[in-house]
């Protein structure tokens, strides 16, 4: 009997301590938010939030082939609220399931919101622990709603589609691929200025080329694709993509695909306005040549390669200059991390410039030097 007593006590204790779980939510009671879009609302202080939520039922139904057709695989919820969390709570009046953010893939912020209220949107993303720092963040051209309403033809899920778009870093250097964690790091390290991904909706697809400029926690303008690539070159972040140059004799174009890039920034001279010099090393393959070279000259000579290297270097240099010029003249914001470089490598000098770096930066002279190396020319001479 005594042994039984012990057993009963154990069972009771287990029932007491192991069963009641306050946080238990069955997985089928959850709605996993994939994308969040934020737009300005015409009422003061209010924003329009869009949540894109994959519908598990439709996805699995479609996969098995039966499908019934016509079922949207992604649902869109829209609400007006003061903050992201407020929006999620608002929805609980309309949706019977828990809105769950752990699997969030991307936050799209409308252009108008980003111009004035970027911090207000970012704050809960940092404060609330349910938002992970692995998701992407982008500013949309026009309203975020258009991005949210895109129905991609490639993938079933918008969130999956948009997230994996950003993994094309090996294919192009014309966009900014940043996870939210990196975004926050840059934002804080740089006094609230950073580049942010740009997203342009276009019916059945989106375009992530180009980038947005954030200055002092406010969105101020765009960089186009070339300028973005230029800045990426400057920061040493290009790991793929191509450069197309006009053939030297005016017969078509030559395509050069990049495999990778290195860069070295150094301070040339201090003075009241510092001067920098930038060495960029790019290596890659020749992907296409004009007809002339292979047909009339029958061979790609080493002088052709040298010439091409030179042309590519010049093209890259001009792209970098475009990006630098835009940042220096139009936006007057140091997204080239020059201040960061001074702070990290020349702390004594930085103390001198720190106070009015914003005025100094537009006048900074940068000496750019690009060196291109062709590694491979493909299977054709």
């Amino acid at each position, binding site marked *: 009997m005594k042994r039984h007593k012990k057993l009963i006590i154990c069972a009771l204790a287990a029932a007491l301590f192991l069963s009641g779980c*306050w*946080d238990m939510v069955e997985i089928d009671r959850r709605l996993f938010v994939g994308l969040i879009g934020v737009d300005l609302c015409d009422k003061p202080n209010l924003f329009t939030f869009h949540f894109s939520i994959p519908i598990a039922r439709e996805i699995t139904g479609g996969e098995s082939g039966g499908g019934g057709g016509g079922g949207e695989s992604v649902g869109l919820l829209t609400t007006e609220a003061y903050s992201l969390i407020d929006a999620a709570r608002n929805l609980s009046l309309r949706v019977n399931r828990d809105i769950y953010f752990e699997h969030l893939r991307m936050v799209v912020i409308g252009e108008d919101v980003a111009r004035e209220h970027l911090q207000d949107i970012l704050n809960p993303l940092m404060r609330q622990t349910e938002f992970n*720092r*692995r998701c992407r963040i982008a500013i949309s051209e026009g309203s975020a709603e258009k991005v949210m309403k895109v129905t991609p033809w490639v993938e079933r899920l918008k969130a999956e589609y948009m997230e994996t778009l950003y993994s094309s870093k090996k294919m192009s250097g014309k966009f900014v691929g940043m996870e939210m964690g990196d975004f926050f790091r840059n934002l*804080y390290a740089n006094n609230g200025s950073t580049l942010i991904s740009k997203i342009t909706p276009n019916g059945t697809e989106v375009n992530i080329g180009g980038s947005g400029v954030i200055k002092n926690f406010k969105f101020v303008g765009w960089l186009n694709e070339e300028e973005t690539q230029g800045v990426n070159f400057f920061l040493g972040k290009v790991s793929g993509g191509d450069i197309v140059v006009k053939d030297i004799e005016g017969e078509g174009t030559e395509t050069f695909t990049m495999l990778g890039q290195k860069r070295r920034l150094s301070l040339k001279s201090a003075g009241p306005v510092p001067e920098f010099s930038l060495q960029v090393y790019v290596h890659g393959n020749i992907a296409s040549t004009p007809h002339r070279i292979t047909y009339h000259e029958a061979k790609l000579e080493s002088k052709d390669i040298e010439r091409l290297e030179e042309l590519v270097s010049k093209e890259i240099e001009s792209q970098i200059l475009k990006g630098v010029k835009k940042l220096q003249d139009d936006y007057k914001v140091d997204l080239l991390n020059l201040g960061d470089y001074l702070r990290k*490598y020349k*702390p004594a000098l930085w103390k001198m410039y720190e106070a009015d770096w914003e005025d100094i930066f537009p006048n900074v002279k940068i000496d750019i030097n690009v060196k291109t190396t062709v590694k491979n020319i493909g299977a054709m001479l």
Partner: protein
Amino acid sequence: MLTNNDLITVPQAVVLIILTILEIGLLILPREVALYANSDGWILVIIGGFLVFIGSLAMSTLIRRFPGETFIEISSKVIGKFFAYAIGVVLIVHLTLATSIVIRTFAEVVNAFMLENTPREFIIISQMLLTVYLIRHGIEPTARIAEILFPILIVPIFAMYMMAIPKADFTELLPVFNTPIKSMAMGSLNTMFSFFGIEVLLMLGPYLQRPDKIYWTMFVSVGVATLIYLLVVIITFAGIGVENTKTLIWPGITIIRMITAPGRIFERLDALAMALWTIASFTTASSFYLTGAITSYHLTGAREFKFFIAILFPWIYFIAALPPNVIATETLIYVVKVVSMILGIALPFFILLLAIILKKKGGTA
């Protein structure tokens, strides 16, 4: 090898001290050093660790000088019964407070990152019951548990933070040595507080199998703890960025939420981080709680210490449930840390000094 139930071996003592030290610092140290020294923060960890080791020499020497004697006995020999008892009471209060804040912080982090709706009191109670279950068995089982949990804790911590390296930007650690000496000094002092927990050795003195190896024990424990803290700080700085680290309450956990583990299976490591945090917190709480009970036992000369576990229980629970929010807990943590360094470094130093002057020495046991 079977060991005597009352004595702990050198490796056991080492892991027990390491696991007692590793706790809150894992989560908040990056922020604290960033606030004091920006990118020089990681240097503070090294200096702090070194200072803690130097400071602990007094405690070690004291234990070597009076082998096999409890701290209460030592201090009553040197400074008289009255003061010794006063110190004993202070120690008990301090250890109770320390247990409370460790458990409270544990509950807060679990609340924030995992179980949002679970009442904090419930987390506190269940963690305390687990702790009580362990320490009722005495010091040797506690040390043995530490021995078992040590690799379970350390290996994943290393692996986890290593996974953040692809996303890390190590230029965040620059510039080096760019902080004024004054804030470096203040920062190092503050970093020492993150090593709170070394004072448990004070009470463990009579239970050490080899008190002659105590310097070595202390060196390895503080050294390993410093290395782990260093790793956490460097990776956090490189991953989150120094400026952003300053704004986060628990940067040590936030960085885990940036990591995507290779392969799709374990994409997220949050759950692993929470499990490790539970272990770290549990070992620390149990060694504080145990030392608290043992101190009471030494002080009163009672027949056994188990009885005091029950007496301390409501107090620990009460204090743990007391602070209204994280900010208040942080204040309490700070107080405990400062007292801890006073008890762990300044007090033994003072008693040792008096013992040398008064030529008091322990019997050669």
